[in-house]
Every structure is written in C-alpha cells, then in structure tokens.
C-alpha cells in the first residue's frame, strides 16, 4: 500500500461547494428529558444555594454528581448528604473559542472542581481566575468556592452557580 496507489474519493475545496449540488436539511429533533431522581434533587438544592451528594455506605464515597446507585459497588446509594461549596481545582483550561469554533472576545476559564468534603467527586464549571494562573499551572490544587447567583435568579440549574473563585487557604 504505497504512496503511489490511487485511492477512491473526490475531495472538494471550500469554493468547489458553489459548483456542486447541495441539499440542505435541518432535523427537527426535540426532546424533553426527565432529570431523574438524583439529578432532580441536585437541581432543587442548587436553587436553595446548597450542594448535595449521595453516599454509598459500602465504599464510603460521596457521589457528586449524585446518583441513586454506586457504579463501583453496584448497589443503591444510601443517603443524601450536604457538602460545603468549597473545593480544589483538579484541572483547568483557558478557552479562546466557542462551541461553534468562533473566536471569543474574552477568554473563558473552565475546569473541574473536586469538593473538599467529597474526595473523588467533581463537577465541571466556570472558574473566575486569571488565565496566567492556568498557563503557569498554579491553578492546580487551588482552593475555590462557589459564587452563587442571587436567589431570585436561581431556577434549579447548574448555572445557579455563577462560577467558582479562589479563597484563602
């Protein structure tokens, strides 16, 4: 299978698209997902400005995001448990592009936060820290706390938390 072999296929450049027949279609795919028991409670608690997890008494883990079964022990989880909204950054990145690949005016910093009271837990969220701290890696392990939207603006969504920002040790 050498370089000289001619393979099937007709590549097109972007302006070739003007010269071929294109058929456009937009799928109408709408869904209404139920959140499920665990996530519904999680979202309701977020509205109240609280973070809640599920505990598996067998392995001792507090699961956040919460779920009604522990995937390691394969058994139902046992109880609801509140945790403080404080954690440490396990990884962080600086984004200069949006989901559609367009250039952002202001770079966004996002990452994963492990809750102090629940080792092994973690959620993805926005971080209010300087991009330089991400690039020089001082963000790793940084202690952060959730900054909540005002109560009137919360509606039971992950965005009830505005972002996480650094706190003193």
């Amino acid at each position, binding site marked *: 299978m050498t370089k000289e072999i001619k393979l099937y296929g007709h590549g097109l450049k972007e302006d070739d698209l003007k010269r071929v027949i294109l058929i456009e279609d937009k*799928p109408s795919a709408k869904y209404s997902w139920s959140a499920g028991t665990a996530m519904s409670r999680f979202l309701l608690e977020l509205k109240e400005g609280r973070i809640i997890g599920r505990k598996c008494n067998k392995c001792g883990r507090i699961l956040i995001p919460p779920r009604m079964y522990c995937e390691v022990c394969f058994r139902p989880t046992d109880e609801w448990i509140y945790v403080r909204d404080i954690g440490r950054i396990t990884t962080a990145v600086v984004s200069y592009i949006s989901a559609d690949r367009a250039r952002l005016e202001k770079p966004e910093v996002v990452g994963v936060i492990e809750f102090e009271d629940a080792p092994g837990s973690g959620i993805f969220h926005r971080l209010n820290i300087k991009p330089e701290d991400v690039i020089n890696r001082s963000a790793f392990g940084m202690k952060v706390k959730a900054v909540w939207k005002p109560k009137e603006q919360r509606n039971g969504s992950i965005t009830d938390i505005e972002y996480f920002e650094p706190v003193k040790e």
Partner: protein
Amino acid sequence: MFEAASRAYADAGIDDPRKTVDAFVTCEEDFWSGISIFDEFTPDQLGGVYKPVYTITSDGLIGLASAYMKIRTGLFDIVVVEAHSKASEIITLNDIINFAYDPIYNRPLNLNPYFLAGLEATKYLHKIGGSRYHLSLIVEKNKTNALKNPLASYASKITAEDVNKLKPIIEPLNPLDIAQPIDVSIVVVLARSDIAKKFTDRIVWIDGIGWATENPSIENRDWSNAAYARIAANMAYKLADIKNPAREFDMAIVDDKISYKELEHIEALRLTGGKNVLRLLEDGEFNIKGSLPVNPHGGELGVGWALEASGLVAVLEGVHQLRNEAVGRQISAKKIVIQSWRGIPTTTGAVAVLTIDN
C-alpha cells in the same frame, strides 16, 4: 436501567455482576435518545464500568445475536444485553423517523413517514387477495390478547367491526393499525451452556438465531415480501435444525408494528405450511386457542412500540411463556419462534428459536 438490570441479575442468581458478567451490549440509536454516542451513558447502571461495553445501533434481538456470537467464540462466559425506550421524551417522533430516509432522494418530499407503510400494505393486500377487514382482525386479536398481559399499555376490548369504521390516515391504514410508543427498559442475561447450568435449572435456550438487512433504498426493494425476515429465519432455522416450521413451533411472536406486517412476517417465517394465511387468520388459528398462537401477549399493537427494545419485549414474553410464567395467557410451549423488525423505513430484522427442556 439500574432497576431492570438489578431484577435481571436477581432472576439469574448473579450476586455481583461486576465480578461475574464478562461483557455488556446496549441497543440504541442516538436520535432516539437525543444524545450522541449513547453508550457513554450506559456502563454505570449495568455494572459495566471498566468492562467491555458497546452499542449495537439496532433492535434488541440483533443485540442478542451479537451476544450469542461472543459466547460462541469461547472468550466470554456471560454476556448481558440491554435495550430500552424513552419514547415519551421525544417531542418530534415523526420528524426523527423522517430523518432516517435518504436525504437526497426521499426526504425532500417531506411526507408523513408512514407513507411507505401505506404503499407496502396496499401492494401486499393486493398480492394475497386480502382486505381492510383482515387488518382489523389482527388489531382485534392483538389488542384483546393484551387484556391479559399486565405489561401491556394499549389493550382494549375492541372488535374488528369497530376498527373497520375508523377513518384512514394513510390508505389503507387507520390509527389503530400502527403501534403506539411506550417507555421500557429490559435487560437479558446470556450464558454459555455449561455455565448456565450453575445458575439455574429453568434455562431458556437460544437454539438458533439469524438476522438480515434487505435494502435501504426504497426504490430497489421488494414491496410485498419481508425478505429480511425470510433470510433471518432461514439462518435461525438452519442453526436450530428446524425442518418444518409450520409444525414445529408451539407459538410465534412476530413483529406487528403495523398490522399488515404480522401477516407478511408469518409468511416469511414459513409458518403457514402451504395454507392460505388469510384463511388461517379468519379461522382463528392464530388466536390463543388456535393451532399456532401468534402474539398471545398482544404484540406491539397491544403492548406498545418499544423502539429498539421491541425485540427484547418479544424475548421477555418468550421466556415467560416457556417458563410457565405467563399468567392468564399461558400457552403450553416448549419451542417457539420470535421475530422482530426495525420499523420503517428499514428492511432489517432478526429471528430466534427459543426452547426449554422438560
């Protein structure tokens, strides 16, 4: 899914699936669930984290076939198959079915996706000399059978005359000819024969299984023959050493997502033994008390359409019947055939022969 899996493991006598189960198959299509790459969301609930899990984008019975092959390789002892439907979460169901049509040749016509069924039903009825009334007989049979099935969602005490009176939505089909969606999660546990005996003595055997795809192009397919079912049945019968399908089965579950399909599938599976399928239907031979009960649980017309879980709904009923657990509609059955079809616009389906020892 966790609940269905837990029940299946309890039924099989498996205490810790994380230790015992070797592989997991899930049957789903992205556009049914609204999530791309659906298997991302499955391992945890099945006990499959850090284990071989994958998706078959097809009906549960074809998922079962892949599990069957895996066990036959000798590499896997116990394999779990899962399929589910959350049709209630899909707001634009017909649009999604439409999305399966060829984007260049068919979709631009922008028709009700069931137009294909109307065309095929017309041609098929014409070919066999059948009428609207025969379709109504099937709807009556399956919906009344479903009255005895606690898992059925669309049972009703309806007569063929009542069905006949309804206005068509696409000639010759009226709303009751088309199975309506349900939500369900089904988990099935398969094991190699020597292993199975360690868990239970009520073993249901897969004696044979087959599947086939005929032709996705609607312009190039056979419009009055379920060839995919015939090819799949031949493969299954060969493995199960079935020589005379019309005589060897105690009952049959065939796909009736759209009423006329039940007859097409019965013919394709060679269950008529040379007799006229319409006469057999009229004489009640496919009823529960007949010589070959078909869809005693109500079929999809009575139970509901479970998207890619349809094949496993058939397996579930087959297992209940063979294990004498089909309260209210029990048939004395030792050997049965089950069949599923993926629904419009596909020509894909699978067939399995299930048996139980004495």
